[in-house]
C-alpha cells in the first residue's frame, strides 16, 4: 500500500512501468479514455497508434517474438476488443506472451447491452491463456502484475484484462510491484531427472537419431538455442525444425536439414521417417508436421521435451516424455551426457549421414528458372543473398510466399523470424514487422508478403509512416491466392474458384499515397537492383515483385500422405490424391 491514492488509469500505467513495459500498441475509444488521459500525462511509456486493433496485437506479437519481452496492447470495449480477437487467437496458438488491456462499459452497465458493450471475457475465454474482469480498483495493480506472471510462465500466451471505465476512474492505494505470482498456477521448469537420464541412454544407443525442434526453443530464450547448438554439435546428429523454430539452429550448419513437414525438405522428412530415435524439443507434432499419423516415423523411439504436459501424447505417442522448459532440460541432458556417455562414446552415425547425403543430393528445392519471368524462389534466393550480412529480421504473411520464405531464407539466429504458424493468419506479417521495427530501430525488417495477404492489414502503412518506420514490404505478387490456387489445382481439378486476386491496387501508387517508396520489378535481371534499392532506401518501402503466376510450392506432403510420400518439384506424373486427403485441411 502506498499513501497516495491513484486512479485506476494511473494504476494501469504505473503497473506497466513497474513491469518494464516501454511500448504499447493500441487504439483509443470511449471506454479507455481515462487510460489515454493517463498516458498523455506521462513520458515513460510510448504508445504506438495502429489503424486496426488486430494489427495492434500482431505488432505486439512481433515486438514480443523479436525481443523475448511481453507485448502489450490497449483497446477499447466492444468493437475494439472484438477486432483484437484474431490477434489474440494467433498469439494463443503460437504461444506468444501478450497482455491485452481492454476497456469495458462501467460495471453497473455490464449485461445491459450498453453502447459498445461486448462480453469480452466470454468471447476471449478460449482464445487466451487466461483473462480477468477487474471489478474492484483495489485489485487492479495486483491483477496486472499477476497477468504478466501468467503470460510469461509455463507455456506463454495472451492474457486479457478487461477494465470497466468506472474502475479506471476510482482511486486506490493498493499498489503492487515486482513479481506477483498467481495463487496456484506454478508450471514446472525443471524436467524429471530420471526421465532425462533415460532419454540420454536412449539417445546414446541410437544409430539413426534426429533432433526435431520447434518454437519452444525460441520461447525458452537465447540460452535454449545456445544449449541446443551445443548438444546437437556434441552428438553429431542431424537436426530439422518446424516453421516456428527456424533460426534456433543456424540454417547454414551442415547438420541442419532444413524445415520438415508439409513443405519440408526431402532430407528432413525422410530422415524423420527413417530415424530410430527422435528427440522432439519444444515442438508439438502438429498435423502440418506429421502428415499421415499412422505412418509417422513408424520405427522410432521418441523423446519429447515440452513445457506443456498436454502436448505430450496428444497425437503421437512418445516413449520418454519430459515436461519442462527447454533450456533447463537441455542443460541437464548435456550434463548427464557429458558425465556418462562422453567417455563410453556413442555410435558413429556415418551410415546415417551417408543415407542423409543421398537424400540431400536429390536437391529438393531446385526449380526451373526462367529468363523472362521471376520465379518466386529466385526472388527469395536473391533476397537472402543480398541481406545475409545485414542485421535483418523477417516476418511473413500466409501462403506460398511464407513457405518459400521458410525454405529459401537461411535463418541463422533465434528471434529473427516472425510468422503465423498455428493460426496461419493472413495479415500478420506487416503489423508484426511494425512491432519488430519499433523494438529494433536500426535493423532491416522485411515482411515477405503475398499480394492477397498484404491487403488484409494494408492500412498499417499509415502507422509505419506516422512513426517513420523503415519497414520493407516485399510482395511476391503472383496475382493469385497462390496457396489456395495450388490446392485447387491439386485437389479440385484446377477449378480456380475465387482465388484470383482481381482488381489489385497499383502498389507503387499506393505506397506513394502513404508517403512511402514503391518499386515494381518484373524481370529476373532487375531483381538485384530492386532489392538493393529497397535496402538502401531510407524509409518505408513497398516492392511489388511480379512473379510467375502458377508456380507451386514443393516439396509437398499432401494431406493424408506420409512423410516419405512427397510430391517433388520435378515430378511430372499425375498427382494422385491420398485417401481422404481432400477432406483434410
Amino acid at each position, binding site marked *: 500500500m502506498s499513501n497516495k491514492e491513484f486512479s485506476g488509469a494511473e494504476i494501469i500505467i504505473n503497473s506497466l512501468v513497474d513491469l518494464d513495459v516501454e511500448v504499447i500498441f493500441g487504439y483509443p475509444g470511449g471506454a479507455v479514455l481515462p487510460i489515454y488521459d493517463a498516458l498523455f500525462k506521462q513520458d515513460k511509456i510510448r504508445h504506438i497508434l495502429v489503424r486496426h486493433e488486430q494489427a495492434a496485437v500482431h505488432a505486439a506479437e512481433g515486438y514480443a517474438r523479436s525481443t523475448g519481452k511481453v507485448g502489450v496492447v490497449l483497446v477499447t470495449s466492444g468493437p475494439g476488443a472484438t477486432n483484437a480477437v484474431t490477434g489474440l487467437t494467433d498469439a494463443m496458438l503460437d504461444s506468444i506472451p501478450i497482455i491485452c488491456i481492454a476497456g469495458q462499459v462501467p460495471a453497473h452497465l455490464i449485461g445491459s447491452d450498453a453502447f459498445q458493450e461486448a462480453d469480452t471475457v466470454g468471447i476471449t475465454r478460449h482464445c487466451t491463456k487466461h483473462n480477468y474482469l477487474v471489478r474492484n480498483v483495489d485489485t487492479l495493480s495486483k491483477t496486472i502484475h499477476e497477468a504478466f506472471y501468467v503470460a510469461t510462465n509455463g*507455456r506463454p500466451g495472451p492474457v486479457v484484462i478487461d477494465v470497466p471505465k468506472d474502475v479506471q476512474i476510482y482511486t486506490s492505494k493498493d499498489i503492487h510491484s515486482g513479481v506477483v505470482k498467481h495463487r496456484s498456477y506454478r508450471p514446472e521448469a525443471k524436467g524429471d531427472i530420471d526421465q532425462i537420464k533415460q532419454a540420454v541412454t536412449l539417445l546414446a544407443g541410437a544409430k539413426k537419431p534426429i533432433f526435431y525442434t520447434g518454437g519452444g526453443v525460441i520461447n525458452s530464450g537465447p540460452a535454449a538455442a545456445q544449449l541446443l547448438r551445443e548438444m546437437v554439435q556434441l552428438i553429431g546428429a542431424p537436426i530439422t525444425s518446424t516453421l516456428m523454430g527456424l533460426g534456433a539452429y543456424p540454417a547454414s550448419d551442415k547438420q541442419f536439414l532444413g524445415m520438415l513437414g508439409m513443405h519440408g525438405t526431402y532430407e528432413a522428412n525422410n530422415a524423420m521417417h527413417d530415424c530410430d530415435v527422435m528427440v522432439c524439443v519444444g515442438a508439438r507434432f502438429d498435423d502440418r508436421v506429421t502428415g499421415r499419423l*499412422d505412418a509417422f516415423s513408424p520405427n522410432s523411439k521418441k523423446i519429447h521435451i515440452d513445457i506443456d504436459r498436454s502436448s505430450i501424447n496428444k497425437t503421437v505417442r512418445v516413449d520418454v516424455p519430459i515436461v519442462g522448459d527447454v533450456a533447463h532440460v537441455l542443460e541437464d541432458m548435456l550434463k548427464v551426457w557429458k558425465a556418462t556417455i562422453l567417455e563410453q562414446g556413442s555410435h558413429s552415425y556415418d551410415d546415417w549421414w551417408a543415407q542423409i547425403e543421398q537424400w540431400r543430393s536429390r536437391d529438393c528445392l531446385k526449380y526451373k528458372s526462367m529468363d523472362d519471368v521471376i520465379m518466386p524462389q529466385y526472388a527469395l534466393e536473391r533476397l537472402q543473398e543480398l541481406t545475409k550480412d545485414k542485421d535483418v529480421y523477417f516476418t511473413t504473411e500466409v501462403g506460398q510466399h511464407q513457405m518459400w520464405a521458410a525454405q529459401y531464407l537461411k535463418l541463422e539466429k533465434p528471434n529473427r523470424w516472425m510468422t503465423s504458424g498455428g493460426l496461419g493468419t493472413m495479415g500478420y506479417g506487416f503489423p508484426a514487422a511494425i512491432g519488430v521495427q519499433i523494438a529494433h530501430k536500426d535493423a532491416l525488417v522485411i515482411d515477405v508478403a503475398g499480394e492477397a495477404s498484404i491487403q488484409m492489414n494494408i492500412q498499417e502503412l499509415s502507422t509505419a509512416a506516422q512513426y517513420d518506420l523503415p519497414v520493407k514490404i516485399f510482395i511476391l505478387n503472383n496475382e493469385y491466392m497462390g496457396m489456395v490456387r495450388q490446392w485447387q489445382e491439386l485437389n479440385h481439378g484446377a477449378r480456380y474458384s475465387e482465388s484470383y486476386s482481381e482488381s489489385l491496387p497499383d502498389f507503387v501508387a499506393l505506397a506513394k499515397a502513404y508517403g512511402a517508396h514503391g518499386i515494381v520489378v518484373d524481370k529476373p535481371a532487375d531483381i538485384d537492383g530492386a532489392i538493393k534499392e529497397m535496402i538502401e532506401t531510407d524509409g518505408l518501402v513497398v516492392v511489388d515483385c511480379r512473379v510467375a503466376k502458377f508456380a507451386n510450392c514443393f516439396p509437398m506432403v499432401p494431406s493424408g500422405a506420409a512423410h516419405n510420400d512427397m510430391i517433388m518439384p520435378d515430378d511430372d506424373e499425375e498427382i494422385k490424391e491420398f485417401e481422404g486427403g481432400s477432406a483434410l485441411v
Partner: protein
Amino acid sequence: MHHAHKEIEIVACHTLSIIVDNEAGVLAKVIGLFSGRGYNIENLTVAPVDIEGTESRITVVTKGTPHVIEQIKAQLDRLVPVHRVGDLTENGPHVERELALVKVHCENAQQQAALRIAEAFRAKIVDSSFDSYIFEVTGKSDKITAFVQLMQDAGLVEVVRTGVAALTRGSKAL
C-alpha cells in the same frame, strides 16, 4: 480413414475431481474445454468447498479411451485457475453419491406401490400433499436411475438430480 492409433482402446467412464479457483468464468472455462475439444460430459457438479469459499470442487464424469482421458486431464491441468485434477476411477476405490428429488402424483392404487418402492430404496419423504409426494433419494447414479424408472408407473411427475459427488476412500485428500 487413418487413425492415430491402431490398437483398439476401451471406452470407459472416469470420475474426475477438479479443484479450481472459485471465481467467475471458471466453470465456463472447464465446460468450454470439453465442448471445444469434443470430449463428453456425462455428469457434472460444482460448488465451493472450503470455508473461505475460495476453492470450488468440480466433479465430472466423462467417457473416453485411456488416451482421451489422459488428454482431458492434461488439458484441464493446464488451465490457469485449475489447481489439481484427480482421477478417482484410476486412484482406486472411491465413494460416489448422487441425490435426487422425485415428485410423484399418485392415485390411491399407486400410493402403496410408491411408498413400497421408496422404502426399498431408503428414500425419504420430504414433501407430501393430498395426492403427491416428493421423495429424496441418495445413492450411486444407477440406483437413482432405477428408482426413477420404477416410479414411472407410480405417477412420476418430475425429477431433479444433483449430479455425482465423489471422494476416494481412506484418509488422504486429493
